[in-house]
């Protein structure tokens, strides 16, 4: 089956169960957004998806091939990963950073497409004008867009290529302004329309609702909800998982639901900082 899928994955780190029997897959053409409170296991989940970390139990398959059976370069030609925090502290030019996204294609003879891929990645993230600037001189948000451009350059395929590809984005909107947050997830949608499977970790529930085909909600290492945003993102679930009271508002003009925090702490379940306040 054409799918990047985890099956019954369990991970233990330092005696703590970080992932517990998680089964979750993403298919080409879809945007899957992972939600959950801090420490719920979202980033670990992405590490498993990317093959960076091996699961203690369960299996990870990409298009019916076990992830660990692929060479690092072959895997890199099928999936690209944008880690949460980039830590580049050497003054590479922006274009050179984006060009590194083409590293996996050095060995497979398709490097003549590199320029197209790099130019497209930079254009899509609006960093073309920064091409000759040193990366270290950019703002946090600009750096994040450059990293995204690199990931896009890695995922670029010539027209007509049918090999499935997957993008894994760990909080791609974290240090972006409002417009760029939306632009980034809009881009994720476009990529999915173009046939990519996209997994993104996002914190903003409304952003997720707007752009996700499906959302997966993690809590304490377990997958607690999975489905269409409208079905999953209901006040009851949010109160239970995040410990936050919200109302769900229907906007008639767009026919969409929006999540609105009430500003009150959850009465039934202790939310963050509750013990300190008592």
């Amino acid at each position, binding site marked *: 089956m054409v799918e990047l899928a985890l099956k019954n994955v369990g991970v233990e780190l330092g005696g703590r169960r970080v992932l517990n029997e998680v089964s979750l897959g993403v298919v080409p053409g879809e945007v899957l957004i992972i939600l959950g409170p801090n420490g719920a296991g979202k980033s670990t989940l992405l590490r498993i998806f990317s093959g960076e970390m091996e699961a203690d139990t369960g299996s990870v398959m990409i298009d019916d091939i076990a992830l660990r059976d692929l060479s690092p370069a072959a895997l890199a030609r099928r999936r690209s*990963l944008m*880690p949460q925090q980039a830590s*580049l502290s*050497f003054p590479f*030019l922006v274009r*050179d950073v984006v060009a*590194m996204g083409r*590293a996996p294609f*050095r060995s497979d003879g398709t490097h003549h497409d590199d320029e197209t891929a790099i130019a497209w990645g930079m254009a899509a993230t609006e960093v073309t004008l920064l091409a*000759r600037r040193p990366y270290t001189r950019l703002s946090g948000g600009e750096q994040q867009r450059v990293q995204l451009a690199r990931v896009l350059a890695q995922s670029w395929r010539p027209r007509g290529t049918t090999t499935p590809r997957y993008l894994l984005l760990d909080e791609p909107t974290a240090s972006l302004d409002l417009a760029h947050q939306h632009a980034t997830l809009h881009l994720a949608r476009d990529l999915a329309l173009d046939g990519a499977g996209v997994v993104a970790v996002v914190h903003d529930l409304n952003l997720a609702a707007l752009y996700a085909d499906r959302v997966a909600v993690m809590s304490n290492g377990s997958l607690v909800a999975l489905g269409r945003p409208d079905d999953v993102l209901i006040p009851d679930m949010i109160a239970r998982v995040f410990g936050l009271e919200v109302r769900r508002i229907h906007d008639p003009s767009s026919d969409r639901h929006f999540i609105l925090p009430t500003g009150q702490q959850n009465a039934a379940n202790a939310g963050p900082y509750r013990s300190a306040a008592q």
Partner: protein
Amino acid sequence: MKPAIFADAVVLPALIVLVVAGVATGLTTGSAELSLATLGTEVWLAVTGSPADDAVARTILFDVRGPRVVLGVAVGATLAISGAILQALFRNPLAEPSIIGVSAGAGAAAVATIALGGFVTGIGAALVYLLPLSAFLGGLIATLAVMTIARVGGQTPVLTMLLAGIAVTAIGGALMGLMMFMSNDDQLRAINFWMLGSLGSATWTAIIPALILMGLALACTPMLTRNLNLILLGEREAASLGLAVDRFKNLAVILVAAGVGAAVAVSGMIGFVGIIVPHLLRLAIGPDHRVLLPASALGGAALLLWADVAARLLAPPAELPIGILTALMGAPFFLWLLRRAGRDGAAW
């Protein structure tokens, strides 16, 4: 920092000129001053296979100063490239063979070989081969130790790296002290002079095994350049781009240990070349290793050639150990970098 398009076109030729001028000066300068014309004549005669015009001059040029100059080029290039590679592997601009303990590890192994060699009869001739090999192993053990100890959650912060380097250097120093304690007067003198770092004792027979090892290490470095760039991006990023990170790092560390071990074995403790040269060049041409590594090789060669000329001229007829000169230049430079890294909060 300015984009480095035309900087490459200026910096690389300038470095080549510095190296060529350094070689010529290194060959002609010393207690017997020879003119460039003599150098030219003798080189021409030697290349064409003709007998020497001035036999004494030819001996001085090719057998006395020749090995010294060739050693300066090889050691300078090796140390500077090793510094650049270590800085990428640690993703930390303060990594350097003499600071993180590679040189101390290589040195301890080399001193042990000199000292223990005294107890084995007939080892004299084999020593030129044993010395670079043992120094290579010593440097390798030291580097792997620092890499393992200093790693905190996938990163190597400056602080733990420097502390691990201090500890490994201390162990290497203690071992060297122990060997010196056990040595007789002749060995002690040899070890002492060697520890200060010098190109002065170079003869062809003594340096050829080490030159081969350094040459092999240098010849392999072009294979590393692109992947070193990926490592700078971050180890997670490099892995997600299809690099087998651990295997690559092991390969690079082995090359560095081989090069530094060979350099230390024949020239002693010459510090800070690996930090001065890559840094100045990064300012001029940027961090891309495809340009930085060849430029560092040239820059390191130029630095050592000219430092060696200075070492011969500063206190005639005596020669200053070249390691003292590079430390006097490099240590303040290192302190300046440390201040700057602390201020920027980079990589701490």
